[in-house]
């Protein structure tokens, strides 16, 4: 039997205190979670519950302070080159054109421009940016920038794709378009996806499974739900199906408790 794509084994992530003497801040505590190869897993939870911390732990940007995270059976201690990471904020380098940004991962690998460009152009085409390759980021809209980031990440063909609320800054129409595009690309070769969001609709429409995290600090998975909605899906239409409505009510009941708890703690 092969190892799961990602495994959290009693993983906790603590941050050192701001002032000496204060207790350390534990963002997530005792997380045990398994994501199978080829699975699309969404993580939802109230704001500030350490969703991004989980992704950083898998990526190796900040490995857990206790317990462990394993990627394909290997303990994570450093940056995971098998993972692609799509961040919430804009991470394109402003001094590179869209094409150069998409090519960046290959540039870091020492691939020459000539060798890289067929792939780069193919990805620009796949995300619908054929004519925009020579534009600089400031000349692109928010949605176009996200598509450049998506192409930049997926071009390297990562085995595991980590996504941190990648579409949260986009307007609803653009977001639905991007979500459908993501599903199309994902359906083509079914990579493992760990998708973090605070938007339950987005989580249900995209994922195979949805995990609800508890309110922070020290948050942990409360419950996992299987999303048995057949694929291919269209995120704009799926919301009207009875399956979706039933799941939404069910998951929201769990999520609501955590959101309320988070709200009370904050006040």
């Amino acid at each position, binding site marked *: 039997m092969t190892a799961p794509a990602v495994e959290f084994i009693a993983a906790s992530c603590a941050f050192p205190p701001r002032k000496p003497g204060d207790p350390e801040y534990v963002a997530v505590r005792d997380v045990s979670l398994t994501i199978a190869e080829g699975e699309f897993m969404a993580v939802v939870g109230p704001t500030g519950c350490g969703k991004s911390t989980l992704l950083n732990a898998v990526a190796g*940007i900040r490995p857990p302070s206790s317990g462990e995270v394993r990627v394909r059976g290997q303990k994570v201690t450093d940056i995971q080159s098998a993972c692609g990471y799509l961040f919430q904020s804009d*991470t394109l380098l402003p001094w590179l054109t869209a094409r150069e940004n998409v090519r960046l991962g290959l540039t*870091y690998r020492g691939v020459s421009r000539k060798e890289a460009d067929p792939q780069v152009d193919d990805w620009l085409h796949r995300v619908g940016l054929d004519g925009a390759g020579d534009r600089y980021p400031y000349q692109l809209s928010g949605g176009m920038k996200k598509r450049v980031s998506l192409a930049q990440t997926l071009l390297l063909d990562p085995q595991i794709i980590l996504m941190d609320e990648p579409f949260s800054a986009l307007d609803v129409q653009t977001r639905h378009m991007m979500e459908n595009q993501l599903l199309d690309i994902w359906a083509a070769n079914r990579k493992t996806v760990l998708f973090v969001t605070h938007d339950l609709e987005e989580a249900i429409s995209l994922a195979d499974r949805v995990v609800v995290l508890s309110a922070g600090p020290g948050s942990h998975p409360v419950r996992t739900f299987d999303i048995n909605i057949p694929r291919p899906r269209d995120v704009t239409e799926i919301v009207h199906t009875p399956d979706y409505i039933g799941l939404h009510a069910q998951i929201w009941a769990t999520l609501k408790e955590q959101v309320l708890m988070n709200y009370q703690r904050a006040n």
Partner: protein
Amino acid sequence: MAIQAQRHSPAFFWAVRLLLLTVLLAAWQWGAQSGLIASYLFGEPLKVGRNFFAWFASGKIYYHLMITLFETAAALVLGSLFGFVAGLCLALNNFLERVLDPFLKALNAMPRVVLAPIFAVWFGLGPGSKIALGITLVFFVVFFNVLQGVREVSQTAIDSSRMLGADRRHLIRHVYVPSATSWVFSSLHSAVGMAFVGAVIGEYLGSAAGVGYLILQAESVFDIDTVIAGIALLTIFALLLDYGVTLAERRLLRWHPNFSRQ
């Protein structure tokens, strides 16, 4: 205001500027001739102009101008280069930065013009001492901007690049240096002025050639018109050098919304 100004063409603004300059010069000339302004203290535009063109007609100025421009350019290039390298080294090495921070602040706070006599002793009365003075002035402007430029890079941008496979060398080349470069260009405009200050003050305090030397000579015989002609000459070349920086900026910062021309 800004929206209204858009209606007029650039040529219109140049015409207005030229008119303003002419009026100011005419008023000055008239004041000097009528005795309203003491011309032995404030000079006279026509005489300034005559001296100015006499310099070029006789060819006397070229030698001095070349010396001053050479000192300025050398100070600008070397000061920027040292500032860039030092800024990058310190920005990428936390330990070094923390240790050296108070020393750098002290050096920067020190009025560096007072170093001119020491440099004259160390490097002689030739261009060397002026270049050294210019370097101390330019260095810190560039240095602090590089430091800021590297700090300005967001942690997410670095994490993102590392996820794409960047090692430290890649980060320096593709992330830190380009970010620092944009900051350096904003500082180069003031650095051009600083380099001129270094050259001219240096010449002023002890030299045998250069525009600063000409100004000093004229001042010692109370020839205000020549002093002003020298100042005008330096201003013109400072503007030209500044324009050169602007051209380089437009080329190198094409990606920046402020510098691109569409």
